[in-house]
């Protein structure tokens, strides 16, 4: 399948959700949807054959927004496997919650949990919200991947 063709196809599928579809040659397609529509968009992508999520990335833009990116692709359809579809959504900085996509893609179980643990994003409907995954059980404080969490550094001089 051609890049442009697939991009057009996806655009057609998710247009009524208020999605912005853009592309980066040769194989990355970006789909940006508002957070209320993210589950619906994910379902439509899954029905097109994008059956698993490879990575869930949350990015912190301090005092502005959080961006959550689901990098999905296909295992069952090897024509689609070449393409990566990034489903993106923006969350307001003071209210980082979004619906979990666990029902659509079971493969996000640990990835969403990790972003919750390290970035402090709440995925509603995920059964393990509030539990720790990688951090120690008694960890308290700012989620470490946020920009306001500072790691100490040393200069080049001793």
């Amino acid at each position, binding site marked *: 399948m051609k890049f442009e063709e697939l991009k057009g196809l996806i655009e057609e599928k998710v247009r009524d959700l208020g999605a912005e579809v853009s592309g980066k040659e040769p194989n990355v397609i970006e789909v940006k949807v508002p957070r209320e529509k993210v589950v619906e968009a994910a379902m439509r992508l899954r029905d097109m054959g994008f059956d698993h999520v490879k990575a869930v990335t949350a990015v912190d833009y301090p005092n502005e927004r959080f961006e959550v990116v689901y990098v999905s692709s296909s295992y069952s359809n090897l024509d689609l496997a070449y393409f990566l579809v990034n489903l993106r959504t923006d969350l307001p900085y003071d209210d980082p919650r979004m619906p979990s996509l666990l029902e659509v893609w079971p493969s996000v179980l640990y990835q969403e949990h990790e972003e919750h643990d390290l970035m402090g994003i709440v995925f509603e409907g995920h059964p393990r919200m509030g539990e720790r995954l990688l*951090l*120690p*059980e008694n960890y308290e404080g700012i989620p*470490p991947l946020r920009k306001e*969490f500072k*790691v*100490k*550094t040393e200069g080049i001089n001793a």
Partner: protein
Amino acid sequence: MVCALDGSMWVGNLEKAARKAAAWLVNKTPIRSLREWGIAFSLWPVHFTTACCGAEFGASAAPKFDTERFGFLPFIASRQCNVLFIEGTLSKKMAEAAIWVYEQMPDPKFVIAMGACGIDGGIFWNSYNVVRPKDILPVHVYIPGCPPRPEAVAQAIIMLQRKIREGELVTYEV
């Protein structure tokens, strides 16, 4: 002061005297050197992999380097071991487990910190989740490297044996 007619004092004294005699005996030259020789060649590390240096620790127990030649046999239960090998990074969660394992080991016990992470955190020195083993355990030998070569592991074992046989590490007191 305890009353001299109290029987328990006699027993206490007897036991103390016996312990003293035993300590005197095992610290005497021929027995002491025999004991230290025995300890030096039966260093059993507990199988406690803390991080990725475990891959090289595995390689040093494997055919090419075969550290079993030094009487160094990785063992499963901490109750039967006397060496704790910190194989790389000690995260906060793991540090708790390391202390438990160390406390379960019988005396005399030794700690070897393997890899840059096990000394000062290595490339992860400024990570928020890393603990330096020397802050929580008495470390006897450090092996630099990331990961150290299996030869360095062997060298550390030989150095530990040397130190044990010099009689600095193991003392028996009443």
